[in-house]
């Protein structure tokens, strides 16, 4: 599983970083990006799903 942040859509709500800091980080402006090239380690699948389901801008996607 991989997660991806669409940097054009991200407006820095920081929901993904709050919910899954293992998968996302934020830059100095507060905009999010995925860690480890988006790779979701085993056991973090639910956190990845939550990050998608809590992004107000629909900026995060998952690739199985």
């Amino acid at each position: 599983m991989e997660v991806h942040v669409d940097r054009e859509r991200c407006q820095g709500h920081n929901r993904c970083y709050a919910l899954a800091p293992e998968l996302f980080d934020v830059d100095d402006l507060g905009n999010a990006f995925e860690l480890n090239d988006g790779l979701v380690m085993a056991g973090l699948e639910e956190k990845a799903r939550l990050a998608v389901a809590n992004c107000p801008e629909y900026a995060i996607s998952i690739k199985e």
Partner: protein
Amino acid sequence: MTAHPRPPVIDWATDFDHTDPQWVADPYPIWDELRRACPVARSERYGGTWLPVRHRDVAAVAYDTEHFTSRSVVVSEVRPGPDDMPAPIGVAPPITSDPPFHALARRLLLPAFSPKAIAALEPLTRDLCRELLAATDGKTEFDAAVEYAQHIPLRVIIGMLGFPQEDADIFRRFIQMILEDVGASAAHRQEQMERGEIDEYIDARITEHLAQPRDDLTTFLLEAELDGNKLAPEHVRGTMVLLMIAGIDTTWSAIGASLWHLAQHSEDRKLLASKPEVMATAMEEFLRAYAPVTMARLVAKDFEFDGCPMKEGDWLLLPFPAANRDPEVFDGADDVRLDRADNRHSAFGLGIHRCLGSNLARMELRVALEEWMACYPDFELVDPSLVTWSAGQVRGPRQIPVRILTKAG
């Protein structure tokens, strides 16, 4: 100016007014009815105003910076005039700015409000909450809005700007003037603004900071550069007004509404008292269900939106709190579920104007509720009819008399 000078609203689809007592008391049934019958309402009040209520329409407007300008974001009888800073800068950048200037003005401020910068303010905020709660020690009844919620964001932002803490009352009066007296006549409002009190106050703080620079947001703005030039004085002043106004009654409303909810739901109090970790989803659910902020736009050019003939200069209210109750997006939209795991709410707006202070607001809300619950795990309203709500585009309880049932050891 507290008297309501306007005729009562009879038909919400053709004559709505966001300062009407019925809207102020409980806007949710009004939005439900409009969502079913007429998703974009129109009113001739305030010189012509539109109101979308579905999530998809609110989002579409928020994302459309071509047909809608942010030049003014507070609906009143007064539209921006020839003497006001024109688009794309506007009177209080970046909230009143449009692309492309908006991104520059916003980028300047974002680092000061990033999650990591805000985390550093948490210990001070926690101390402040404890101090406010300690001041209520021994009282069995007190006002949770007046004695607790309102002070938290106010004191934090005064500290961030480097203004004197004893000016809190002055700040409260300015907020009242700008955000709550919007039902006032055009003449009254014009006169208020022309008195220039706010500019005078800010100019005095700027003079102090120029004479003696400090490690705060005011000095930061005075020294900041855009394209190698210092910011224009009106840009600095406008941004300071924005930080003073936008950061305070919004968060105080969110804290107050959350406590108001908890005071009426013993099962939710028990849940938070026994499982403090539920706060992570609970605070997002409070933000969704009781989102305080309705934004506004001006139509930038004539065009048709959802079959509605929008004319340049029309107001448009952008009710994120209504989008958050749209059953097309939220399951059981009117139920408050503290463990709601999937919550794409837009309490902080959508698109390029996402609330700059959202990380600060979330930290303040979480800390305020955590400290309250740790001190007063069980409490109730003294009398629901004594609760009063603010009028205008920021909705929150202004008086919440509570009775303490259990104080933690």
